[in-house]
Structures are given as structure tokens and as C-alpha cells.
């Protein structure tokens, strides 16, 4: 789709946005060993939750520009007039956000996992859980970004709206990573996370679409 191609091309021309999110993620993970002190076991115990929380916060960084930039330069008006369904626009923007932010975070996950002393056998599951959680954040975030579009402190309002909704993703994602680290079954947790994504994927763009139209 043309809109997605344009999203990706702009992201390639401006790699700083993607890089900022990834650097933020790695840096937050790097701060924990300093804060917790010389205790590898404690660090490994904290790792799943820290990974998820850091990744979600990092993915939030570019979200407030998701529709903000389009609205400022008038592109949003053109998109709404070109015959695309507003929910379709929101879905494509969410997908674009996941590709330009979520996937790089997943790729950076092993670095952060190593910094947090997460057992190597859990890295694969950690990447999976992070991928699902960031996808959930992308679709919920698109709805949040559309709702806060035009609000004066949208950048502050957005995390307040989106993060509480993403709490279940953190719970099940972290549980999956912890299960993998302890050699337990990870399937149920990942399935629950995927179910959340399946629920959010059709609903959030619809909400975002009507928010875009309603302005």
C-alpha cells in the first residue's frame, strides 16, 4: 500500500527517530545493573519486567508524532479526502509504527537481555514477547495518538491513556520470559498476549478512525 511505502521511506530518510527509540531502550536496560548493584541473580529476576517496561516506554517516544506531523503539514486532510477509510489510515500508521519502532526494538532485545543477565535460552522467547507487546502498543498507541491529536499537552496525555491499557501485555509478556528462563511452558502466556493483540487489532484502528474524522 502506498501509504505504508511512504511511511517507510520517510523513516529511512529520518533514521534518528528509530535510533532514538532503540538507544533509549538499551540505555534504560543498561541503567538497571548500576542501580541494582552486583547481584546477577537479582538482575536476572528483574530482567523480564524491565525488558517489557523499557521497550514499551521506548515505543511510546515516536507515537505523539504519528498523526501530529501529518496534521501539522496538512497531509492528514489530504489522506482523509483521498477515499481511504479513516480506520484504514490508522491501521496502516500503526503498522508503520511497529515496523519502524517495534521490529528494531525486537532486534535490540538480545543486547538489553545480555545487559540484564537474562539466561541465553530465554532470549528467543523474550524477542517474541517483545514483538507482540510492541505490536499491541502500536495499535493502542495509534488510537491514543488519534484521540489526543490537537490536545495541547497531547504528548503527556498519550502515555497516560495508552500505558494502562498495555498493562496486561507487560504481565503476560514478562511471565512468558520468566517461564522460559525457568524452563517452564511459555505457550500459554504468549497465546494470551497474542489474543490481546487479536482483540486490539480490529478495535483500536476503528476508534482511531472515528477520532480522526471527528476532529
Amino acid at each position, binding site marked *: 500500500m*502506498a*501509504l505504508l*511505502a*511512504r511511511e517507510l*521511506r*520517510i523513516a529511512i*530518510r*529520518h533514521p534518528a527517530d528509530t535510533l532514538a527509540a532503540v538507544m533509549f531502550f538499551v540505555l534504560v536496560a543498561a541503567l538497571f545493573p548500576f542501580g541494582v548493584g552486583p547481584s546477577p541473580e537479582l538482575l536476572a529476576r528483574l530482567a523480564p519486567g524491565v525488558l517489557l517496561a523499557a521497550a514499551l516506554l521506548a515505543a511510546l517516544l515516536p507515537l505523539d508524532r504519528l498523526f501530529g506531523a501529518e496534521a*501539522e*503539514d*496538512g*497531509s492528514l*486532510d*489530504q489522506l*482523509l*479526502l*483521498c*477515499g*481511504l*477509510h479513516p480506520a484504514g489510515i490508522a491501521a496502516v500508521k500503526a503498522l508503520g509504527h511497529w515496523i519502524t519502532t517495534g521490529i528494531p526494538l525486537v532486534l535490540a532485545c538480545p543486547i538489553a537481555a545480555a545487559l540484564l543477565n537474562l539466561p541465553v535460552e530465554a532470549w528467543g522467547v523474550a524477542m517474541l514477547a517483545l514483538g507482540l507487546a510492541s505490536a499491541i502498543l502500536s495499535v493502542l498507541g495509534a488510537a491514543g495518538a488519534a484521540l489526543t491529536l490537537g490536545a495541547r499537552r497531547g504528548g503527556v496525555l498519550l502515555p497516560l491513556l495508552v500505558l494502562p491499557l498495555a498493562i496486561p501485555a507487560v504481565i503476560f509478556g514478562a511471565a512468558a520470559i520468566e517461564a522460559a528462563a525457568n524452563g517452564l511452558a511459555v505457550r500459554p502466556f504468549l497465546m494470551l498476549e497474542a489474543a490481546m493483540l487479536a482483540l486490539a487489532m480490529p478495535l483500536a484502528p476503528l476508534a482511531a478512525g472515528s477520532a480522526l*474524522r471527528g476532529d
Partner: protein
Amino acid sequence: MEVSLFEARELACWRAERLVFAGLSFSVSPGEALLLTGANGAGKSSLLRLLAGLLAAAEGSLSWDGADCFADLAAHGAKLRYLGHQDALKPSLTAVENLRFHASLQGGDVAAALDAFGLAPLADLPVRLFSSGQKRRLALARLSLRPARLWLLDEPTVGLDAASVERLGPVFATHRAAGGIVIAATHLPLPLPGARELRL
């Protein structure tokens, strides 16, 4: 019976608790041009956004060929071209890439559109290097991508040099000769012979 193509009846618009205009009625037939004039804040831009379906009317109706425009906003949007205050261009993309994106959504010939506004030599330059007049020309070039029956233009000539304004003349003329309508808000004279004026 005369076919009055595009008709607004008793339109009213509220913006932030303030009545911008009310009881506004007009009709435009194919090939006609309508100039919206009035002081700053008179509601020219609001009216254009309302006609494009981007803004909900507080009251009144808008019909085109007897069909209600507000009933199917997506279909209405596909029949018109709207040029707002902002140029809706992505600074990091080149002129061709910007136009090609719109062409892929609505169809049209990118090279011809660039040519019509004398932008062919700048085609592969990122838009962030353009002057504001060049950006405006590129935004206008979107109009000639593919024919649409209604053009809603908000101050189309802001920042344009005299030669570019002249270049608009034949573009408008071809559009109107093909039965297209131009509704433009402007403070500057536009090359639209025989245009009616609606003072807000």
C-alpha cells in the same frame, strides 16, 4: 430545468463557541468559479473545509447533483481536490515522491503535473530545499494530477511569483472548460475570468 450542480443551503458553522457564519446559501454550476472574499477570520477557510467535508456543518445541507454530500464523506472527498493553507508535502521526500504518493492514491500523471507548474528541473530535489513559493507550486501541481470536478482552494497564490500566477490561468481554464468548478478563498486577484464573488 437548469441543472445547478453544487448547492449549499443555509450552512452554519461554529468554531469554539463562536458563530463563524450562518444562513449561507449559494449554488455553483459546472464551469463556474466562485471567489470567497472577506476579512481575516470571516470564515473563508472554515467554509472551504466544510465544503470538503473535513468540518461538520452545524446546520444546513450541501447537495451535489441532488445527492447529499455529508451522507457519504468518502465518496464526496474522492470527487474533489482540496488545497489548504498548508502544502501537505513531506520535506524529506523529493518532489516526484510526494506527487507519486498522491498519484498512487488517486491516479494521474506525475511528470505532466510537474511540467504544468514548471517544476520538472526540481523533480528529484527533496522538498525541504524548496522555497515556499516552490512548495506552493508543488501543492498546486497535485490539482493537475487527475481531473476532479470540484477544486477547493485556500489562498492558492500565497507566495507565488507573477509568472506562476499566470501559469495558473490555463490550468484553471482547462479545468473549467471540462465542466470543473473552482471555489477559491483569496485576497489576491486570481486568473479566473468571469468568477462570481461571495463576500463573507
